[in-house]
């Protein structure tokens, strides 16, 4: 069964001896990959394999020739200057670009070994497995409870809904603040709480991957710190890809970092993003290989 088709979230779902499926742990077939960084070789499980991915809008290139792997239970950060295609790239990972009629994605993008853009793949299933949290908190105009319960209801998920909501709010470190006001309007929450609510809403449908597109850019430093702490907790259960303008945030929370920079054609009329370097975050921020990375992360060019 294909995990991305409408027939179900196959992921070679395997039951334990007691017959219970234990989320992604039980469901995901382990496919180790060798990844080299700073001379070290690690056994890692690949979630995404991007091979020569290019994205264009109405024929105008936005991102060119991106090849990188994203690994399980890691935070991968995409950094780079404005207009380098970070958001375009992250939106490829759950086919959000499908919603833009002129968008075209070429190259090969495998999610757990399956072509994410294959003809039988259902984008709705893709977005269930690969959730997204946006720059600005976008709760629905509903109660806190209904915000979190929305996805499980739509997807007719099995299990006790109250329990699903509580677990999602706990995972998003919001339960203690929200448990006595579950019927209250989500708009009554602070910005940081609303963003954690959006994360809870994402978690409630049991995704495999969480994509975060500048999740803290609208938040104050305390709320940002809470989201960053939360990411460190969440990566135990999920794989996370984050786009951030804040290089120190990338340095704090991510395991690997990819830097995209803007390139111009000879006429300087067309510009697109391309990956300059992708390595362990430690290496990117202490001893990068490419001088462009050195200049960008140390703020010498912008």
């Amino acid at each position, binding site marked *: 069964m294909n995990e991305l088709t409408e027939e179900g979230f196959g992921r070679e779902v395997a039951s334990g001896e007691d017959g219970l499926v234990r989320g992604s742990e039980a469901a995901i077939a382990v496919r180790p990959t060798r990844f080299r960084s700073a001379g070290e070789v690690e056994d890692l499980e690949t979630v995404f394999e991007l091979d020569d991915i290019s994205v264009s809008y109405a024929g105008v290139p936005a991102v060119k020739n991106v090849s990188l792997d994203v690994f399980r239970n890691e935070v991968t950060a995409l950094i780079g200057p404005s207009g380098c295609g970070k958001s375009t790239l992250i939106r490829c990972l759950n086919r959000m670009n499908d919603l833009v009629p002129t968008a075209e994605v070429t190259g090969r993008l495998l999610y757990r070994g399956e072509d994410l853009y294959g003809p039988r793949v259902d984008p709705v299933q893709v977005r269930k497995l690969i959730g997204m949290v946006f720059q600005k908190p976008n709760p629905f105009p509903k109660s806190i409870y209904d915000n979190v319960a929305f996805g499980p209801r739509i997807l007719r998920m099995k299990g006790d809904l109250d329990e699903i909501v509580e677990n999602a709010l706990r995972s998003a470190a919001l339960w203690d603040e929200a448990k006595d006001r579950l019927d209250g309007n989500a708009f009554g929450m602070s910005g940081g709480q609303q963003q954690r609510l959006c994360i809870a809403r994402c978690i409630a449908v049991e995704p495999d991957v969480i994509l975060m597109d500048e999740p803290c850019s609208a938040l104050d430093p305390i709320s940002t710190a809470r989201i960053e702490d939360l990411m460190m907790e969440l990566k135990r259960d999920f794989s996370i890809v984050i786009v951030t303008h804040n*290089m*120190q945030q990338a*340095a704090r929370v991510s395991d690997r970092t990819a830097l995209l*920079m*803007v*390139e*111009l054609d000879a006429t*300087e009329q067309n*510009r697109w993003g391309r990956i300059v370097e992708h390595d362990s975050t430690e290496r990117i*921020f*202490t*001893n*990068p290989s490419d001088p462009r*990375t*050195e*200049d960008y*992360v*140390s*703020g*010498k*060019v*912008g």
Partner: protein
Amino acid sequence: MAERATRLHYQDELADLEGRALGGLDLVTETLTRTLEAIESSDVALAALVVADDDRIDGRYLEVHQSILTLLATQQPVATDLRLISALLHVMKSIERMGDQCVNIAKVIPLTGNEAPRDAEMIRDIVTMGRQAGSLVMQAKVGFAERDVELCRDLVRRDDVIDDLNRRCFARAIEIGDEFDAREWGITMMLVARALERIGDNAVDIGEQTAFVVTGLFREFEDASRPGPIG
């Protein structure tokens, strides 16, 4: 794409910080020159001045250390800048220790008394060691400032000369005679030679930090734990 240079003020701050840190090496060579003069002429007053003047080196250490903390807190340096900051912390520690070695020497000069040196040859070796050490300190400064790893590696070769002289001083101290005063003088001078030998080692340490800034890898130029003569 034409990239715009940014954080110019930060870059100026970093360059100024490095300048002040490396300026500490000038203070060390100045102090070392006075220390050698005090040894050669058994000048107790000059030795006292060396001890008192160590506050200048300690002050430079504290000043640069505070500036580094401020820069870390306010500018979050990364990559080469971060390695430079880390190296400067080590360099300042080496400078402070070299200043302390001069103080150690200056403090024992009064113990040798105002009489003529017991062994002119040993004094000659010690002064040669001191001058070599001063020259190494300057070479380390140039090597660091110019990020010249080869010049820094050459410090090891030159430090070996100091190590040989140190061993010779050790041998002379043993052979100096049975008389109590002569033995006391010999042992005191052995301590002086040891302090100068450590200054040479500190200069090599600065060379290793230079290599770290340039390559991103910290490797001792020479493995101090390898079998070999003491010194």
